[in-house]
Structure formats: C-alpha cells, structure tokens
C-alpha cells in the first residue's frame, strides 16, 4: 500500500503590499524563528484542508 504524503504550506506572506516601487516584507515574524514558522505552516495547512472540505 502506498502511503500518501500530506501536503505542505511552503511559505506565507500576510497582507497586501501597497507600495508601487518595491515589495514590502514583514520582518516581525523573523523575531520568532524557524520553530514558529513550522508551527504556522502546520496550522495553515490544517485550516486550508478544513476550508476546502466545507
């Protein structure tokens, strides 16, 4: 039996960039490091699946 791998969220950018000259990137999240990023990826993946299942 083939084991199906769960899909992953690879990256997330929040909000919209209003600046018409460059891309603004949120550095607030860098304060929390890679463990926080992994946790956010799992939570977003779960919420996406739940939303799609509705």
């Amino acid at each position, binding site marked *: 039996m083939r084991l199906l791998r769960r899909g992953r969220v690879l990256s997330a950018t929040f909000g*919209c960039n*209003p*600046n018409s*000259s460059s891309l603004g990137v*949120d550095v607030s999240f860098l304060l929390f490091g890679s463990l926080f*990023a992994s946790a956010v990826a799992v939570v977003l993946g779960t919420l996406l699946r739940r939303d799609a299942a509705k």
Partner: protein
Amino acid sequence: MRIARARAERFGGIVELRKPRALLQVDKALMRELGEPESPLWSLDPQGPLSAPTEVHVVLSRRCAAGCRGCYVDATPQGAALPFDEACRILDELAEMGVFHVALGGGEALELDHLFAVAEHARKRGITPNLTTSGLGLDAAAARRCAVFGQINVSVDGVGPAYAQARGFDGYAHAEKALRLLRAVKREVGINCVVSRSSFEHVPEVARLVRKLRLNELELLRFKPVGRGARLDEELTPEQARALYPMARRLILRHRIRVKLDCSFAPMVFWHRPSRAAAAFFGVQGCVGGDVLAAVQPEGGISGCSFTPATVEGSLRQAWPDAFGEFRGFVANAPEPCASCEYLALCRGGCRAVSAAHGAFAAPDPGCPRVQEHSRKRPLPIV
C-alpha cells in the same frame, strides 16, 4: 479562513486567502488535497520562474504637484499618465495571467480623475488594488471612496519639521490629516517611510505615529539614488545600514506594530544572520523583480521593477516566459561575495536598481554590509 482562489505553479501552487489576507505557496500534494486540477507546470523543473507575477506595480503617472526633492519617478505637474482605457487593458491581461495584487502609485495617483475607476475595474477582474499616496488634497469624500482599496499607505518620511527636511516641502499636516480620514474608513492603512541618511534618526518618531493613529503597518523603504534622488547624497552610511534591522526589531517590540522592510533592504537584514527557514517561509527576500513582481510604467512599457527602465513593450503575457533574464539570472551567475554567501538564494544580491545606479546592474549591491567588508579586504592590484 476563506480561500479566494488558487493558481498552479511549478512547485505546486499559490493560494490566495481572503481572510486573513495572505498568499500561501503550497506543494503539489496540498494542491491536490484542495481539489485543484493537475497542472502541466508540475512536470517542469520546480526552480523556474513563476507562471506570472503575484503582484504588479502600476505607476499610473509621473504627475504630481508636490515636487519632492528625491522623487524616484521624477514626477512633475505635467508628467505623463496612463490613460484609463490602457490601464483597463493592462488589468484585463493581468487578471488573465492570474495576478493577485496591483499596487497603484505614481506620481500622485489621487490627482488622476480615473484612479477610482481603475481600482474598481481591478476589483471586478478579481485583483486587489492597493495604493500609495502622499495624501495631499485628500478630503473626507475621497477617503470614503478609498474603501475600494486593499491596503493604503501614506508617504510620511518624518514627523513635523523632519517631513519637510526629507521631502523638500511642508506637507506633514496634510499627510496626518489624510491618515486620520482614511483610518476612519478602513483598518488597512499604514505609512511608507523612505529611510535616507538624513531621515534615519527620525524613523522612531514615525513609528510612534503609527501606534498613535492605530495604523496597521510601517513600511520602511530604502532611499535609492534614481530619478531626482540621483542628485542627492542620501544613501545610508555603512553604520546606518548595519543598524537598520536592529532598529526595526526594537520598533516592533517597543510599539507593538507591524514593520515591513522593502526588498532592497534584504542585505541589511541577512547580514544579521536571521533564521533562513523563517525568512524563506515568511517571504523575506531580496530582489524579486521580473519574477514575483513586475512594473507597468505610465508610458505603457513594462519593467521587472519600477526603478528600472521598461524592457517589454506590448503584451506582458506573451513576453513573460522569456523576459527579465537580467533579473532572474542573478543568483545563477552571482559574483563574489554573493556567490559564497549562505543567504544568496534569499537575498538575491540585494537591489538591482541600486547596483545599476552605481554603474553595474549585475554587480552585488554596494550597500550590502558583506559587500562593503569584502571590498575592504580585497588586496590592491599589483601595478
């Protein structure tokens, strides 16, 4: 959470969320779990460029009465403007390509009679329009119409006298009034602040204003020596470049505000060696011109970034697969000290527009602390 739409990419796809507003890159497996159809892109090398930009900057005009001394588009009261029909044609094409956001600016976009009609057309085509404005001339009626935009940022390069010092005219009272009017209409209102050598020390005052007016973000933009700014000696000193990211962290923690840095500040962030995994996940990266973003100039030409000259005329959709090689090829051909930098894939060599302004588009960003250290260490040539 509400999914607005999804777009297939080589690595999987990009999912747009309406609430919270976000763009998520997901792998193929998750795209399948979400019920998205199989895409021919999934058989291609996942390292290639995106199928379309996620965001396009539309410089609606080079028209502005303010006359800021460092204006990067060299805007004047009689400057060129993108006609309404042409703006709609471009938005239609961007919608067909799957572009998610446009950032409307100028010049002063509010001076154009058709600004709101352009924004409403973008909405009709499923694109979120966002706006940068100086706020000059904005009244309560215009502020109410600004509800059509996603995020609106008002340019404020200093508070009180520091504003006039930075921009060359005294428009602070107008800018603060505009912020209050807009904030009364919507929550997604913030400040764009150009950080230059002389305005650097005043940035904390702007952060305090963001907190005081309960704005949702402070976006710090790097001064670039282009347009009228090319005549100014306002690039950050090496000490300021190193101090920028620690300052941003302090402002986040002290004022509990969201601070964004523009993509050209990537070298100043990565010099402090933040988590690469966190930076990649939250989209902290350097030049994404000609890939994640593109820019439409008021004359109708298209460039990889609004700071660089147009290289595409006509259809962006047709040109996209093979265009902007000068942007996309930097990482593969990076010279030292970028080539040996562990952050190269994220930083992408800093800002191409700044390198071009210093004479070499494909050279490492001369404002990068690592590049500056490398230059100091390099042995003198033997004569």
